[in-house]
């Protein structure tokens, strides 16, 4: 398994194929839903393709950070430190990334290509 740049190159290819996107400046900072307009069916297909291309198990709600806001609310309800709680749910995300998502979550879904890279890299360690 190559480094993060190899994973990025492969993910970029997959997304361009699946979503039939050409000539878009896709970078690790690209927001999948807000910038590329990815819908549920696109994410589902992406999960399935990541599973077969990288040979890792993929849990959709984990890789796409679907429950980020729910976990935030759960942490507050249970009187837990939000950062610590969310880091436990998403062990593949760095703490500064979690802080970044929390800061911008009100703008809409914060899922970026770099989060997918983190997930693939993290899960590949266990393969």
């Amino acid at each position, binding site marked *: 398994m190559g480094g993060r740049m190899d994973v990025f190159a492969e993910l970029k290819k997959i997304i361009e194929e699946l979503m039939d996107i050409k000539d878009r400046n896709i970078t690790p900072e690209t927001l999948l839903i807000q910038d590329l307009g990815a819908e549920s*069916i696109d994410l589902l*297909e992406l999960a399935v393709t990541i599973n*077969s291309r990288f040979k890792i198990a993929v849990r959709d709600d984990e890789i796409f950070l679907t429950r980020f806001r729910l976990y935030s609310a759960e942490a507050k309800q249970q009187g837990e430190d939000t950062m610590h709680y969310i880091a436990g749910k998403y062990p593949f995300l760095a703490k500064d990334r979690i802080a970044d998502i929390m800061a911008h979550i009100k703008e809409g879904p914060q899922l970026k290509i770099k989060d997918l890279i983190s997930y693939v890299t993290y899960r590949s360690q266990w393969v």
Partner: protein
Amino acid sequence: MSLHFSGNRALILGGTCELALTLAKSMIESDLFPILTYRDDKGPRTIGEALRPFHGRYATCFLNFGDRNSLESIFSQIGDDLNFLVDFAQGNYESLIAGADEDSVYRYFTENISSRAEILKKVGRAMLKKRKGRLVFISSAAAVRPNPGQGFYAAAKLASEALYRNMGLELGERGVTTVILRPGYINAGRGRIYLQKQDRIILDAVPIKRAITGEEIAQTVLFLLSDGAAGINAVEITMDGGHTSGK
């Protein structure tokens, strides 16, 4: 008219029932490769005897709906190479709602709804990889006109129908479509046993004055699996000789 099919590998759930075996024969004759599931030790023998002339042209697979490990291992066996799913699997639990045993109810719904959802997730994802697939759920006209005691059966059938319907809505744009078949009285397997216990007069209420045959079900399912039927998506079709159409 000859039928055209996109692919040839068909997973048949509940593969030991007479309808499934009749369908499997028709599939093999149409150059499809059925993979029939069984849930106990008698399964392979039942299937082997029924499909004796077709040795090597089908496969069998153990699947116990109540066992999640069994669900995992079936897909590591079949892999992602799947074009069709035909679902005959159905457990039975007869009880008045107000008289039901709670543990039995939980188990029944887990085996007949939750497990089915798990299988559909795996099948759907495998078919998505090819952006092509066809799923047929064998429900029952009894799901919408149940007798007392059939409430749990009806609930499981209707919930399963909803899962299949939504799969067709959600994945249709990616080439994966679904259809639900609701047969009425069938002169095969469990249906034949039921009819033998009833008065002959029961079939007078059916406009065609007879039960549907297993061969008719097989031919209908084959058509529904074929390319020409892909436009029939996320919908139920009743096949009961007109029984539920009139008063």
